[in-house]
């Protein structure tokens, strides 16, 4: 025969507004399961209600200030990042154009030493070193400049 645990007897007490509000902020559903755990936490707390309320108030103010700071710095970061991404996209396009133009140059006969030198440099940058552009923009920038 399977033994079944007898249902736990419970006493209903009315929830206060303050508790409702706190539970709401924490996204906690005050259920039969969570209540004993919360009561246990309350028993273990070394601070008084007044002290805890004060700490929570201070932490909330600090969080609000940090949220404001974060918005400010995130806006600056986003602006710079957009600028960087825009430049990188433009650079990738010019790189591809230059690669195609360099290939066109390769089919032409060279007229002098200057053209030979230019062509060698451009081949190094846009054909031989073409994959560098996509590894890391910074590395490729340095590599291509070399």
């Amino acid at each position: 025969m399977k033994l079944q645990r007898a249902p736990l007897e419970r006493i209903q007490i009315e929830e206060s507004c303050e508790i409702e509000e706190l539970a709401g902020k924490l996204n906690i559903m005050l259920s039969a399961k969570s209540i004993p755990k919360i009561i246990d936490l309350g028993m273990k707390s070394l601070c008084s209600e007044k002290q805890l309320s004060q700490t929570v108030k201070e932490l909330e103010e600090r969080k609000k200030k940090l949220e404001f700071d974060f918005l400010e710095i995130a806006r600056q970061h986003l602006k710079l990042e957009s600028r960087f991404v825009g430049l990188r996209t433009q650079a990738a396009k010019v790189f591809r154009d230059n690669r195609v133009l360099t290939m066109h140059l390769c089919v032409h006969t060279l007229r002098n030493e200057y053209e030979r030198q230019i062509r060698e440099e451009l081949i190094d940058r846009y054909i031989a070193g073409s994959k560098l552009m996509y590894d890391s923009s910074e590395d490729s920038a340095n590599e291509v400049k070399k």
Partner: protein
Amino acid sequence: MGDHERRKLAVPKDLYEKIGNKESIMKLIKLGLLSLRDTSLEKEITKLTEKIELSRKGVKELPSEVERMEAYLRDMIEDRKTLETILAERR
């Protein structure tokens, strides 16, 4: 919400008897919730601080990255002009 609509909390009978009365139970629930709120706020603050630090790092480093990318782009635009000039002369 009116008083009569307020939800009821079900406290295990043995726990209720151990604590003794409704007021103490409510006080302990409040303490427990405040304690939880305290912990969760501390975690949120730590996460926010980390995010701020990361963004600050980006704001500090990105201007030089942007400058480098601008220089790189300028050089490539110069190359394009050179290429176009040479190729135009051949046509």
